[in-house]
């Protein structure tokens, strides 16, 4: 199902108008990223050692990354409850990855080798290949250890009629999603208390995403420069508001009532979700998760300020 909303009236843009300028810096970055992707290649389907099962008396996600962490409720959980919660939260987190990467791949595939994307298509081939691999290993983790993926509760997002606005929003959403996910990957990749397969997958994802984030920031920044030069201040402001709402939305998607039920925490999982989302400790944690992206967006002039309703 798709929710379509009013689009922004604007004149159609040409390919040159809706593409960022390829500065020499961006050109060098693309060349370097392509080289790194080639160097980092290995057969992903043979790279990892997948155990038949994971221990039930262990954390599968770093405790500090679970959605109850820091609240008084976390202190009341037994060790077994905390571990079970971390296991279900990990399956949910990888499910979100799979759903997000499917959306991301769809958007990139629809643009590769289209007018305006010629300079970036070489790197986008690496990007698509790596995202496909991420989907594969995260979905395998969910199926092999978690009984399957949690279903996606989101609907396709709004389309903007203005082609430059739409292009900017698509890649800004991708950037925000990848940077949030990397907050988790970078930490779990170095958490030696987690099962080795968990560390290995998160570490591999973090390496790839570092390149994707570098590419995404440059692309999004260039697109926004075009927006500022060619579109109204009202539209630019509307896009900032939309992206901040998107940030809130993906943070909220981390809190899944099905996870709380499956972890045996409560029958009233919806109320627990609401209460967690309102908790000041969790709100502060949300700010921490977004800090890197918000700082970058403010520095690039994409956001006027770093205030996000989280």
């Amino acid at each position, binding site marked *: *199902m*798709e*929710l*379509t*909303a*009013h689009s922004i009236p604007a004149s159609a843009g040409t390919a040159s108008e809706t593409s960022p300028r390829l500065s020499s810096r961006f050109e060098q970055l693309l060349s370097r990223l392509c080289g790194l992707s080639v160097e980092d290649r290995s057969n992903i389907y043979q790279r990892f050692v997948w155990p038949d*099962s*994971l*221990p*039930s008396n262990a954390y599968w996600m770093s405790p500090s990354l679970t959605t*109850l962490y820091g*609240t*008084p*409720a976390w202190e*009341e*959980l037994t060790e077994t409850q905390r571990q*079970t919660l971390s*296991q*279900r939260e990990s399956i949910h987190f990888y499910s979100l990855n799979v759903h997000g990467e499917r959306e991301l791949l769809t958007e990139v595939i629809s643009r590769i080798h289209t007018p305006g994307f010629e300079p970036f298509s070489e790197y986008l081939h690496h990007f698509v290949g790596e995202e496909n691999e991420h989907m594969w290993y995260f979905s395998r983790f969910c199926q092999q*250890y*978690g*009984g*399957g993926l949690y*279903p*996606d*509760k*989101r*609907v*396709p*997002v*709004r389309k903007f009629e203005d082609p430059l606005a739409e292009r900017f929003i698509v890649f800004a959403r991708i950037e925000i999603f990848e940077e949030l996910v990397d907050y988790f990957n970078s930490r779990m990749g170095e958490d030696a208390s987690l099962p080795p397969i968990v560390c290995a997958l998160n570490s591999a994802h973090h390496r790839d995403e570092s390149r994707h984030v570098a590419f995404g920031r440059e692309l999004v920044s260039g697109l926004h420069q075009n927006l500022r030069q060619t579109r109204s201040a009202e539209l630019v402001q509307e896009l900032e508001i*939309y992206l901040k*709402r*998107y940030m*809130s*939305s993906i943070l*909220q*998607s981390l809190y899944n*009532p*099905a996870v709380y*039920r*499956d*972890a*045996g*925490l*409560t*029958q*009233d999982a*919806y*109320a*627990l*979700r609401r*209460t*967690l989302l*309102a*908790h*000041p400790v969790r709100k502060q944690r949300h700010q921490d998760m977004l800090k890197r992206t918000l700082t970058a967006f403010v520095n690039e002039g994409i956001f006027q300020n770093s205030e996000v309703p989280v």
Partner: protein
Amino acid sequence: MMAQLPTPVAYTIAPTVARQAFTTTIESSPVSPIESTLRTSVYAHETDRHGTEGPSTRVSPLALPNEDGSPPLSPALQTLESFLREDHPELETIGLDQDLIDSRILDSLRFMNFIFLLEELTGNPFEIDRISVDDFRTLRTIESRFLAGLIPGGAYVR
């Protein structure tokens, strides 16, 4: 499947149980120790922000009897209508036949929370692939599609 985990709590609540649950308020429902602890903590914070009254609550005008004496909207629909107005303080009310999608009162970024609220009200989870945008076009279609059969006069309060 999930051999290493405790048996998950059943996701789907039987319709009769859901309907019974619908007639109780969240505030008066038994809550788990975890939920109780969290509420105390959150309320203390909200009281700091809002003074002794805590966070304000708004009553939907649709909860009042209509001018012609006909009954007001069902409590479930009032709850959904209040939720939708949270991001649209300029709206005093949302008409039964107002297009929620075209007016962007319900957009994709709010949809997940709306679905969770609807699941909570009905006691049944939804699979996104099995529902259509037209099911959410107006409050009337939402009531017809999802709320028909719930006990009238239920006292559900968010």
